[in-house]
């Protein structure tokens, strides 16, 4: 229920360094990761729950022709579907700005710019056949912080994925038979969204808190603290000091979240 009274209450609470559900400003809700939730139909899949927020990610693999300028490289295609049942805000139909934002700047940019996946290793025959990895994330329930949930879910799904058997002579993929080879992840790009409400910064916002935000910045970092993606949202501006503070917070939290995968 988005309403004025809760929004102003959140803003008042933030002033007292407190939140609606009693968490600390930089505290995440409970995170649960479940691997292989759709083992029959996808090569890799995972379900991530952050509090009441739920996201399912799936990996499909196809064999196709490489791009003309990258003859010895495979590719990834990321897509995010915001299902109408997961929130009152989402409608069915073509991708919205929000779903494109999540797919492009959180999933795709995070994986591509961190160089987590070695695209050269996805080549079957140079210039002719390469693996295409399709990454799809679906929102099951939106209670805020979809970006981080989608980021974690896609990483978990990639970790879970195994290549299907490919017959080079008949040029056919046998999806029923999985090989033991998985996708090698060299880095773990973890997105962390930081919300700015009234000069305070909070992590893992709920839906009500997202409705009360001034600005948000999603920072994707890898193990050594390198930033590989940034995405800003919300109407109010961020000063350089704000941005530094946010990056510091997100890098620290990213390190904690990375432990979930080890």
């Amino acid at each position, binding site marked *: 229920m988005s309403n*004025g009274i809760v929004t102003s209450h959140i803003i008042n609470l933030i002033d007292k360094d407190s939140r609606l559900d009693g968490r600390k400003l930089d505290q995440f809700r409970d995170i649960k990761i479940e691997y292989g939730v759709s083992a029959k139909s996808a090569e890799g899949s995972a379900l991530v729950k952050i509090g009441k927020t739920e996201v399912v990610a799936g990996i499909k693999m196809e064999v196709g022709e490489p791009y003309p300028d990258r003859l010895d490289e495979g590719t990834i295609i990321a897509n995010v579907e915001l299902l109408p049942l997961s929130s009152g805000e989402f409608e069915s139909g073509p991708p919205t700005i929000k779903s494109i934002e999540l797919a492009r700047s959180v999933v795709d940019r995070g994986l591509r710019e961190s160089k987590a996946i070695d695209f050269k290793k996805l080549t079957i025959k140079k210039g002719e056949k390469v693996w295409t990895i399709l990454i799809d994330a679906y929102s099951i329930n939106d209670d805020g912080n979809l970006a981080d949930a989608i980021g974690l879910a896609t990483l978990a799904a990639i970790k879970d994925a195994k290549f299907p058997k490919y017959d080079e002579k008949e040029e056919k993929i046998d999806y029923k038979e999985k090989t033991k080879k998985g996708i090698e992840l060299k880095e773990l790009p973890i997105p962390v969204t930081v919300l700015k409400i009234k000069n305070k910064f909070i992590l893992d916002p709920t839906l009500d808190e997202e409705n009360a935000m001034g600005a948000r910045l999603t920072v994707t970092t890898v193990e050594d603290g390198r930033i590989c993606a940034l995405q800003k949202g919300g109407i109010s501006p961020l000063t350089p000091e704000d941005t530094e503070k946010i990056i510091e917070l997100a890098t620290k939290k990213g390190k904690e979240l990375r432990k979930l995968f080890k």
Partner: protein
Amino acid sequence: MGELKVKDKDIVVPGDVLAEGMDFLPAGGAFREGENIIASQVGVVSVNGRLLKLVPLNAKYIPKRGDTVIGKIVEVTNNCWFVDIGYSNHACIPLRDGSMEYIPKGADLTQYYDYNDFVVANITNVSKSKEIDLSMKGPGLRKLSEGRIIKVNSAKVPRIIGKQGSMISMIKQMTDCRIVVGQNGLVWLYDIDPLKEVIAVEAIKKIEERAHIQGLTDEIKMFLESKVGVKNAVQ
């Protein structure tokens, strides 16, 4: 000879046979089919002599005259405010019942209650065609300016309030939280200490979850004592 098929306080689902024979009478939530009395809701059986009643576990709010409800202003016209109280029809606060103070003719009504404001109001009338009239004239009826609103199942509201308000006054006393429970299942809470407010919310959610259990007051008392300490405990 009639035979009772269930015990008092049993949980039944629709279609369950509660009793056989003509010795028992169906009341709310149950009906007679031939010789049998059958449940029509999910609920807890209450056996009162020959009377078999079902207390539903889950119910939509149905407005009654005299109920105090919390609602959101969804429309402001030139002579009334329309309020969403969680029923199929919007309720109406007519101008004459809008405020304790005099509202001059042609006044901007949004100055009193604006869109998305929450108000505590009293139901003065429910017509046959389910048009609901509200009044803001009375003690404690007002616009809610700060605090949070949570939603609970309206079937559990009697448990949250308790006998003669025993449960809710215990929560208020132990957490120092200000609470208004609307009969329609919306609850308003405010506490200067945010953590105590969270404890009060947890307590209310706990009551909602475990409403069908006996001895709930003691359980909630123990829960609150463990959270806030015995300092504030009821003597």
